[in-house]
């Protein structure tokens, strides 16, 4: 069996996905592909089709800008686990939703359900103590339970139990009747990545319908993605400073985030970019006046941002808290299947913008990679990425296809989706790789919609990062990843 290679957002007939007759063959193929560090599993899920449950494996090859897709039709409700850390999390999901047992699974625990008797990892040592944090936290954040095993002030192990935010997004995506309703749902998969998720959703729907996005739509989406990155990264920097009790950084970065999100409001009526990206249309026209306003906003932003960042990167009091805190090694990141910013902080260069180009991104763009994998690396990545995004936005505006005469931007009628088709879209949200997968049925309606937020992989990174750190440094480690609870729980 030779896997089918697809480009980002390239649709294919569902029947064309090669099927491995034997599970061993399926697993071996996956293992072979994943042994290459340039490949990683972007999605692995089960699909209940008429001819049985298909296990579909999607492995992205970053060097070839291709995604290998292949499947296996289950004949048994018990299959051996692949025992690859990055895949095991997907196996937990399949096991939870389809009742399939993976024998030899090293961590067979619920993924998105929160039973009272959750089998936490425990230490029998009398010297160790447990600290349970959450699901209700101080401050306005989402619910999740963190169980620490500590020796004095040092964390030996952290186990994270999620699932409190499970809303049934994937099922709802199929059940909702209109595209508008589906779009609103896509925007709310993770509140801080409204643009990222809606771009992935729009790409999927447009690919399924054979619709080609207009130049203006492509520009608007790229701009929205980069503005989201600038806004959220700046907000995170503020929160990182807040967590080390550095008031100046907290206040300055906090103030800097505001003009960016206010600009989003001016453009599309929502500070978080909701409604900014919709399939088959560019709902808000980007005029010359808006462009000038943006350039002015960015100019004022950049000056203060650079000044503050220089201060943060040279201030011993702050550096002593950030450096060598919450380190994740390259090997650990690779094994955990880390994606996005968190992976790049550990020297693992994974950026969908570069490796699987979409919209206006191209493979010659520069990505920021750091090698220490500590909180400071993740801080630096944010600072440098904001700079890169500003440069990118300026370039976009320079070549923007302003066409004042065009008023009708939406497609005349919503095109119908092709029947029995599979499509997978990868988008680099500010946090990392977002993967949306869709399969349509014989009548051209959605039969399956799978969502994967980068948090899905990266929560594991947090568990690894805090080991052997002080428990008092957990909040700063957590903030440096800033993962989404609802993006994970769906």
């Amino acid at each position, binding site marked *: 069996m030779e896997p089918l290679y697809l480009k980002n957002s390239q649709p294919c007939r569902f029947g064309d996905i090669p099927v491995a007759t034997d599970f061993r063959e399926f697993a071996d193929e996956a293992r072979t592909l994943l042994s290459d560090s340039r490949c990683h599993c972007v999605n692995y899920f089960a699909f209940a089709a008429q001819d049985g449950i298909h296990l579909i494996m999607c492995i992205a090859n970053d060097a070839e800008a291709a995604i290998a897709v292949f499947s296996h039709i289950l004949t048994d409700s018990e299959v051996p686990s692949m025992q690859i850390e990055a895949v095991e999390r997907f196996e937990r999901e399949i096991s939870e939703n389809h009742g399939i047992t993976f024998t030899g699974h090293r961590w067979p625990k619920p993924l998105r359900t929160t039973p009272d008797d959750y089998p936490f990892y425990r230490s029998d040592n009398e010297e160790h103590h447990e600290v349970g944090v959450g699901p209700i936290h101080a401050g306005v954040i989402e619910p999740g339970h963190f169980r620490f095993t500590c020796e004095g002030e040092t964390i030996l192990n952290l186990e994270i139990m999620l699932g409190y935010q499970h809303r049934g997004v994937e099922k709802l995506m199929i059940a909702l009747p209109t595209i508008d309703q589906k779009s609103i749902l896509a925007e709310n998969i993770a509140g801080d990545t409204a643009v990222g998720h809606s771009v992935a959703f729009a790409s999927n729907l447009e690919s399924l319908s054979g619709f080609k996005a207009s130049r203006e739509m492509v520009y608007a989406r790229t701009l929205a993605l980069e503005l989201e990155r600038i806004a959220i990264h700046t907000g995170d920097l503020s929160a990182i400073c807040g967590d080390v009790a550095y008031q100046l950084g907290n206040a300055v970065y906090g103030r800097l985030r505001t003009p960016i999100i206010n600009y989003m409001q001016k453009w599309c009526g929502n500070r978080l970019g909701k409604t900014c990206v919709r399939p088959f249309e560019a709902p808000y026209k980007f005029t010359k006046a808006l462009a000038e306003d943006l350039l002015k906003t960015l100019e004022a932003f950049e000056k203060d941002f650079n000044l503050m960042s220089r201060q943060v990167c040279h201030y011993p009091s702050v550096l002593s808290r950030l450096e060598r805190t919450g380190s994740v090694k390259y090997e650990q990141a690779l094994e955990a299947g880390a994606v996005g910013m968190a992976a790049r902080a550990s020297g693992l260069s994974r950026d969908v913008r570069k490796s699987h180009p979409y919209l206006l991104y191209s493979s010659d763009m520069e990505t920021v990679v750091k090698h220490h994998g500590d909180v400071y690396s993740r801080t630096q990545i944010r600072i440098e990425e904001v700079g890169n995004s500003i440069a990118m936005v300026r370039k976009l505006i320079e070549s923007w296809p302003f066409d004042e005469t065009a008023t009708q931007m939406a497609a005349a009628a919503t095109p119908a989706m092709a029947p029995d088709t599979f499509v997978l879209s990868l988008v680099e949200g500010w946090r990392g790789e977002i993967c949306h997968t869709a399969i349509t049925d014989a009548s051209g309606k959605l039969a399956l919609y799978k969502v994967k937020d980068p948090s899905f992989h990266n929560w594991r990174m947090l568990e690894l990062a805090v080991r052997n750190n002080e428990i008092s440094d*957990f909040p700063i480690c957590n903030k440096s990843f800033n993962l989404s609870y609802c993006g994970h729980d769906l």
Partner: protein
Amino acid sequence: MLSILLIFAAALFFSGIIVRTKSVCAGRRGPGVFQPIKDVARLFRKGAVYSTATTAIFKAAPVIYMASLLMAAACVPFGNMPGLISFEGDFVFFAYVLSLGKFFCIIAALDTASSFEGMGASRESLYSMLAEPVFFLVMGSIALLTGNTSFAGIFASLQTYGSFFNFGTALVMAVLLLLVAMIENSRLPIDDPKTHLELTMVHEVMILDNSGFDLGLILSAGYIKFAMYGAIIANLFLCGSFAGSIAIFTLVQLLCAVAIGLTESFMARFRMNHNPEFIFSLSAAAFLILFTIVNL
């Protein structure tokens, strides 16, 4: 009598000035100077909620804590006017009556059987234990210098030293005492009073279960504690005339509050495992004072 009234008066402003300094530095409008006092007044009107897991110790601790602070504040003189309580060796009594209050706070925290509060209690007891030598070395040094062992005697004779008493030494002492006050009050750079994250807290996490009236007591005790340390520092600089003394007292309290506010605006909290090293270095500086005085 005058000294304790002055301490109460300073306590009304102290926290408010810190908060105000911080908000000015952050470019925010911020709350008024009396906001902390208003918060406490609101808490005093409320009832307290008690966990069923706690015992009488938990209920008694805030009152004992407050009482210990009032007693300690009563020991502090104002220049050559002794405090309400004054006897030979009263500065030892001062230190240990404070420790008694803290001890009850710690066992009350353990009483809740919460893993958070146990963590906070262990941190708080470690830091105040390490800070204790600093206070004794500073006070002991001046006691040695003046040949007195009561607060009143020490400060009264300091005033007569004039040029002989090295102003620089007093300044170092003032800084050390201020830092001790910041440690004892769980401020930056040891602890972050603003955080909402239990895992990084020291003092706040210890009093997580206290609410309403009890919390009001603990908070107001904290304000008095600040003013009390401010008063001790002011005593190092008081001059003979009454009006001058009042002015110096006010100025020193103000400077202390602003200094704390500025530190909290422009500095990050220490990494938890650097805190003991920091406190040890204060002890080392206090030894310098002792050696200076021994060599005089």
